[in-house]
Structure formats: structure tokens, C-alpha cells
């Protein structure tokens, strides 16, 4: 099994001790950490327990936590731990049983390996990049032509690669999802094995009792003729938490910066969980409804995965009262609005709201978004007969720019080529009319009710009936994902803080000060010097000399 070592601080004899192990545990390696020259002693005392080795895997890392690192790489120990397992399988009695019991811990140790995690992240990034280069969601024919076998891109990349590996739907392909799942398990393993014990360790504070230990810190100074209590007061005034025990002092600041990475990982796990729930348990649908008509929500929504459960509110009927658009002075569309009413099964109106883009309607767990618009029909009077509803067909859709048209026949409809009046529109504001020969005849606005005479026929545009494009969605994963987002933002902010620790010892009339920090290493010496400058100098018998002096 793994060897258990404790690192003790100079409170006890300085050399690291090895606790003797149980007889059947093979202790065949030297942990590399003992031979490294540690710049600073581990400033906490870690207990090793001699209990049953099948206990929790926190013991796996109790050996080598260095406070000066953010996430101590359990590399040395993990690999050794894995190797040490093998000789045990020779034990005949219950070998499989022991191996099975150790399997979770072994898996954990493999998963929480840092280079593996980095490799997984890199793989995810590369796959995502590939997904943007290869067009997604096209028919197989497209890929046959883009990546032909007789002329492969990069010399080997043909459509076979694309279709078998699922690159045409990269973001839901097994490879990508599998890598994400692996990354998620690595996250969980790493949080469990590394980060949580780190919390326990960092919360312990300990005094350094000898000047040599303090001098070995990243930053150390010696103040002659000072008192450690004054230093404590200055530190407290600067936001540190100070602990004073006899001649020695320990202060720290920014401990939250140590915990925040755990929060970051937990937030990411939360987001992943929420995203999975969204992908498997939500309902989506979109519909284009002409003004004046209605639809039932349940008809429009379709499930996305196996966890989707329809709710009672799916029986609600939605009625589009009115659809209208706002325009800029230049004629471009500025906003779409839809006035919606919701009716329940009994016909009672339960909600009424006018929605627009960026302002959806929320009711009963589902949300209705305004995403698009279309032109349904043009209501015209022909020679004072009518009104006729002429359906408008989309002629050209170019993102936000659309062109619709319709046709009113004026000659005999049985003839082989029918002549008529064409009407085109880009929006609901103005209709452009063309005569039987295709020549421009005029522009009319629907609310003006002005007639136009085209080749003897009098046309009055009564109304332009638009249809609204709505997206409906119900997503149980959204609260979880939002919680994850908030937590991620918060914890990322907090993890920017630097965890600073300061030790001091009263050495006769002098004070030896040492400190270290984990993030803001550049500014640390200056900040400490500023603080130390403010420590008053204790002058012996000579009178009122001012004190802003620092001895060397």
C-alpha cells in the first residue's frame, strides 16, 4: 500500500519521520518529496493514522500538501500508489476482494492526475474548434462533396472520418460528450482528493518558533528594537487576523482565496449537472402564428430527452391578439411586439401580456419568446368587393431582411399565363404594387386606406396581417444552471484574492518577521515593507525620538 509519511514542523524534531507500516504493506519507494529542498517547511502538523487502509482516500494525500501551492499535484504519490498495488495481487487469499476494494481509490487516484485533466481540457478545446471548422448538421451528401475520398483534406481526412466519428453533429457526438463526462469525473475526483483536504490543512494555523525557520520564508526581515505586539496591531489594522502566543505571532489574510478554487470546481459541476438536465428533460418548440389565431402549447412543444415530463400547463391555449412592429425613421425595424392571451381548459383568460424580443412571457414553468416574424396575408378590396385575404409568400429570406409577395389575378384565370397585380412587401409598413406588365405602380400603407388604380382595377389595401414567430420552452435545468453561473462568477472573483501569511518572533529586543503569499508575489515585498515601516521603534532611555525607522 502507499507509504504514509508525515511532515512535521520544527516544533518537533526537524527531520521528517516515517511512521512504520503494517507488515503486509510494501514500502518500496521513497517519496520524492523528502529529497526535494523545500524552501519553506510545511507549517502544519499532519496526523497519519494507522487505521485500516481501506478507509477514505484522504489518507492518500495526507503526506504532501504544500501550502505554497494552489492545487498540490498529487503526481508523485498517485503514481507510486498505483504501482504499489500490484505486488499485492500475488496474495492468494482474497486477492480479488482486496483489489476490488482498492479499485475505487485507484480509479480516483488516476482520475485526479493533473496532466490528465489538462489533456482532457485540451481535447475538449480541440474538438470544439474542429466543430466550428466542419459545418454542422448538414446532410451526408454535403460531406461527400466537401471531403471527398479522392482528394482528402490534409491527406487523410475524408467524409468517412466525419460521419463515423460523429463530427457532423459534434456537440452531441459520443466522442465529445464522453470527453466532457471524463472531465467531469476528473473534476469530482480532484475536488475530493485534493481540494477538500487542502481546506482542512489551510485552516490550521501554526506558529514558527525559531528565527531560522522564519528567515527561510520568501520574505523576511529583522526589526531591531521593536515589539511583536506592535507588529500585531499594525497587521490587524491592515486587515490581517492575528494570533499571538507568547513571543511568537501568526497572521493571515485572504484565506478565502484558498477555498475559492473548490468553489469554482463545484460550480462547474453544478453547471454540468444543470446542462445535462436541460439536454434530457426539457421541451422545445417554435411556431409561426398569424395574428388572430391560436394554438395549444402542448401541440407545439416537443421533448428533447428521456427525462422530459409534460405538465398540466401544456393544455393552455395561446391566442395571438395582435402582432405589430415598431420602425425607425429610416424604415428599419426596431422592435416586434405580440399581444398574447393565455386561456386555460375552461376558457378563462389566465394571463395577458405583450411580449417583444428580450422580453418573454413566463407562465407555469414555460416561457414564450418573440424570435421571428412573418407575413401572413394581405387584406385587399378589389373594385370595392371583398375584403379578400391574399396569402403572402416568402420570396427571399436573408436573416432579418425578408421579402414577401402576393399576386392578385385580374384576367381570366383559365388562360395559360395569368396576368395580375403583384404586391411586394419588406415589412408590415408599406406595400409596393406592380401592374400586369410588372411595372412599378405605387406604394401604399395599409392604414391609409387610399385606393390605387392599376389598369382599371381599383385596389385598396385594408390591412397587412402579420404572423408572429414564437419560441416556446420549458427547461427544468435552468435554475440549476443559473445557480452554477452565479457561483462560478462569485468564486472566480474570490479566487483572485491572495492568501498571505506572516510569522514573527520576538528575539530579544528584535523582531524577526517572515511571510509568504500564494498569488500576488510581485507586490508582496513592497506591501510588507510598507507595513513594517509603520512599526514603531522602541527607544530605550533617550527621549522622544520619533519612531518611523527600520533597523536592518
Amino acid at each position, binding site marked *: 500500500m502507499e507509504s504514509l509519511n508525515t511532515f512535521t514542523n520544527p516544533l518537533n524534531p526537524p527531520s521528517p519521520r516515517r511512521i512504520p507500516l503494517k507488515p503486509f504493506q510494501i514500502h518500496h519507494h521513497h517519496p520524492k518529496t523528502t529529497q526535494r529542498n523545500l524552501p519553506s517547511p510545511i507549517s502544519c502538523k499532519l496526523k497519519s493514522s494507522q487505521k485500516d487502509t481501506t478507509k477514505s482516500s484522504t489518507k492518500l494525500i495526507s503526506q504532501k500538501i504544500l501550502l505554497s501551492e494552489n492545487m498540490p499535484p498529487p503526481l508523485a504519490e498517485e503514481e507510486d500508489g498505483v504501482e504499489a498495488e500490484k505486488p499485492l495481487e500475488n496474495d492468494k487469499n482474497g486477492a480479488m476482494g482486496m483489489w476490488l476494494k482498492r479499485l475505487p481509490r485507484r480509479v480516483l487516484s488516476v482520475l485526479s492526475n493533473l496532466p490528465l485533466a489538462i489533456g482532457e481540457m485540451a481535447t475538449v478545446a480541440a474538438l*470544439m*474548434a474542429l466543430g466550428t471548422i466542419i459545418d454542422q448538421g448538414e446532410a451526408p451528401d454535403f460531406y461527400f462533396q466537401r471531403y471527398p475520398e479522392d482528394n482528402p483534406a490534409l491527406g487523410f481526412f475524408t467524409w468517412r472520418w466525419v460521419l463515423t466519428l460523429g463530427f457532423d453533429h459534434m456537440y452531441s457526438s459520443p466522442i465529445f460528450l464522453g470527453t466532457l463526462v471524463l472531465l467531469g469525473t476528473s473534476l469530482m475526483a480532484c475536488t475530493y482528493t485534493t481540494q477538500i483536504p487542502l481546506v482542512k490543512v489551510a485552516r490550521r494555523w501554526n506558529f514558527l518558533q525559531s528565527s531560522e525557520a522564519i528567515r527561510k520564508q520568501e520574505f523576511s526581515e529583522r526589526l531591531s528594537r521593536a515589539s511583536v505586539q506592535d507588529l500585531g496591531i499594525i497587521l490587524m489594522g491592515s486587515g490581517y487576523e492575528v494570533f499571538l502566543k507568547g513571543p511568537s505571532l501568526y497572521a493571515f489574510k485572504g484565506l478565502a482565496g484558498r477555498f475559492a478554487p473548490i468553489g469554482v470546481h463545484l460550480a462547474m459541476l453544478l453547471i454540468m449537472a444543470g446542462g445535462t438536465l436541460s439536454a434530457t428533460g426539457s421541451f422545445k418548440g417554435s411556431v409561426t402564428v398569424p395574428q388572430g389565431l391560436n394554438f395549444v402549447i402542448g401541440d407545439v412543444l416537443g421533448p428533447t430527452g428521456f427525462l422530459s415530463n409534460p405538465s398540466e400547463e401544456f393544455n393552455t391555449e395561446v391566442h395571438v391578439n395582435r402582432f405589430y412592429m415598431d420602425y425607425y425613421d429610416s424604415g*428599419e425595424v426596431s422592435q416586434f411586439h405580440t399581444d398574447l392571451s393565455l386561456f386555460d381548459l375552461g376558457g378563462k383568460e389566465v394571463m395577458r401580456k405583450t411580449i417583444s424580443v428580450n422580453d*418573454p412571457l413566463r407562465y407555469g414553468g414555460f416561457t414564450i419568446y418573440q424570435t421571428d416574424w412573418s407575413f401572413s396575408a394581405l387584406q385587399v378590396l378589389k373594385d370595392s368587393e371583398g375584403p379578400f385575404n391574399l396569402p403572402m409568400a416568402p420570396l427571399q429570406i436573408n436573416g432579418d431582411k425578408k421579402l414577401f409577395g402576393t399576386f392578385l389575378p385580374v384576367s381570366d384565370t383559365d388562360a395559360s399565363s395569368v396576368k395580375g397585380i403583384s404586391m411586394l412587401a419588406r415589412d408590415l409598413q408599406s406595400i409596393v404594387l406592380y401592374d400586369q406588365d410588372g411595372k412599378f405602380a405605387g406604394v401604399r400603407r395599409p392604414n391609409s386606406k387610399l385606393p390605387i388604380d392599376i389598369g382599371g382595377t381599383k385596389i385598396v389595401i385594408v390591412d397587412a396581417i402579420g404572423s408572429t414567430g414564437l419560441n416556446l420552452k420549458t427547461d427544468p435545468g435552468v435554475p440549476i444552471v*443559473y445557480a452554477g*453561473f452565479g457561483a*462560478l*462568477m462569485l468564486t472566480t472573483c474570490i479566487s483572485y484574492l491572495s492568501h498571505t501569511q506572516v510569522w514573527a518572533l520576538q528575539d530579544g529586543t528584535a523582531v524577526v518577521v517572515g511571510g509568504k503569499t500564494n498569488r500576488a508575489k*510581485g507586490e508582496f515585498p513592497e506591501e510588507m515593507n510598507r507595513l513594517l515601516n509603520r512599526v514603531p521603534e522602541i527607544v530605550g532611555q533617550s527621549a522622544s525620538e520619533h519612531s518611523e525607522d527600520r533597523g536592518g
Partner: protein
Amino acid sequence: MIFSTLEHILTHISFSIISIVITIFLISLSVDEIVGLYDSSEKGMIATFFCITGLLVTRWIYSGHFPLSDLYESLIFLSWSFSVIHMVPYFKKHKNYLSTITAPSTIFTQGFATSGLLTEMHQSEIVVPALQSQWLMMHVSMMILGYAALLCGSLLSVALLVITLRKAIRVFSKKNNFLNESFSFVEIQYMNERSNVLLTTSFCSSRNYYRAQLIQQLDQWSYRIISLGFLFLTIGILSGAVWANEAWGSYWNWDPKETWAFITWTLFAIYLHTRTNKNWESLNCAIVASIGFLIIWICYFGVNLLGIGLHSYGSFNLH
């Protein structure tokens, strides 16, 4: 009318000032002793900051919407972020290593924005319905600030790589050539890729000590600023996702721009994790951050060249 002239004037003033600042930097390289020049270059940068701020505010008032709705405005915002980042260490009274990177970056971004390539985009455009939201301010400004900080950090890492590699090449060549090993004046030059500014620093005494110290400080600075940029990028991506959910009902659509922003985020997460291992520390991290430089430009500009997807507002065509 007055606003557009004011905007015009401010654009040209900021561009001119920053050109002067760059010239001053170049002069101060060859003539070390003129401290007054350094001072005036600092003042020049502050003046540039105010000019660009004025430009953005004028545009905001004139057009009625927050000045971040197309590529031109986002470029101006980017150069504004660079000048802000330039000034922050100035307030903390640190020696300003970043200035050699932020100042040229500002000028190049500003220059590109005001150049002839994008003249057709200078006009204030109307805002399509999808962009009329309060989220616009937070999402886009955070993203641009994040890009600016990450660009600075990755440029510092590139500088670090160049110094380290020059040292390695020099040591290697010394072994082959048996040059005199006595202490002498050594000049370390490193090219800033964006600007071709040669910062020549003369060191006397042991060359390794100063070089090592420079490397260490560059390392520290790039770490701090990349962490800050990572924070902004995280907030930007997440606020974009929330905004997308409010507008279209789905917080992640695998849109090219979203995907590339996520790739950038992943890469800098790799950078931060690489730093935890002391053995790898400076060299590998610097390599990762240098890759990040390319990726940010692909994310910001390259995707816009495609002009597809939900972020097509930022597209433009290079003729």
C-alpha cells in the same frame, strides 16, 4: 452635427497623441537619460485615455445606445481598455512593465479602427431588436475588457519566451564558440510582436541575475493580469449565456463565437492549472499563454470574418 464633428476631432486627437507617445518611447530607448521624456509619455497616455473616453461618451450620447453594437465600436472599446490597463499599475506606483505592451497595442487597435479599412462602419448604426437589452452593456464590455487583459498577459508571456529562448540559444552558442565568459555589458532585446518596438536594456554585472529577475517579474505580471482577464472573460461568457436565455430561450447554442470564447476560456484555465506545478512553471505556462494570444484573435476577429451565426452583427468584409 456638432457631435459628429466632436467625435471626428477626438478620434484624430487620440490617434495623434498615441503616435507621439510611441515616438517618445522609441526615442527613450536610444537615449536613456532623458527622464522628462518618460514623464511626458505617461502624460500622453493619460491624455489618450481621456480622448478615447470622450470619443465613446460622445458616440453614446449621439447615437442613444451604448457604444458597443458593432465591430468598429468594439475596437474603440478595446483600445480604451488597453489604456485603462496601462494606467492601473501607474496608480499602484509599480514600475510599469506593461506600458511597453499596452501603449503599442492601443495605438494599433486605434489605428486599425480609424483606418481606411473600416470607413464604412464609422457611422452609428441602428440597433436591431435583439441587441436592445441592458445585458448588452455588461456582456460585451466584460468580454472586451477580458480580451484586452488576456492579450496583455499573453504578450508578456511571449516576451518571456523570447528572453528565455535567447538565453538558451546564447548559452548553446557559447558552448560551441568558447567565447570569453567575463562579465560585460549585455544587451537584452526582445521584440514585441505587435509593435516592433525594440526595448533595449543594458545591464552590467552578472547577466544571469538580471535576466532571471526580469523573467521572474514578467512571469508574475503575466500571471496576475491573466487571472484578472480570466475573471472578466468568465463573467462575460456567463452574462452572455444568461442574456441568450432571456432573449432566445437557450443559454448555449454552440454558435462559432460562443464556442471560440469557450475555447479561449479553456485554454487559460489550462494556463492557470499549469502554474500550480512548480516544475513546469515559467516555460510551459508561457507557451500556453502564447497560444492563447492567437486564439483570442481568432475568437475576436476570425469568427467575425465568417459572418455567420448569432453574432453576425460584428461581421465585416475585407475587400
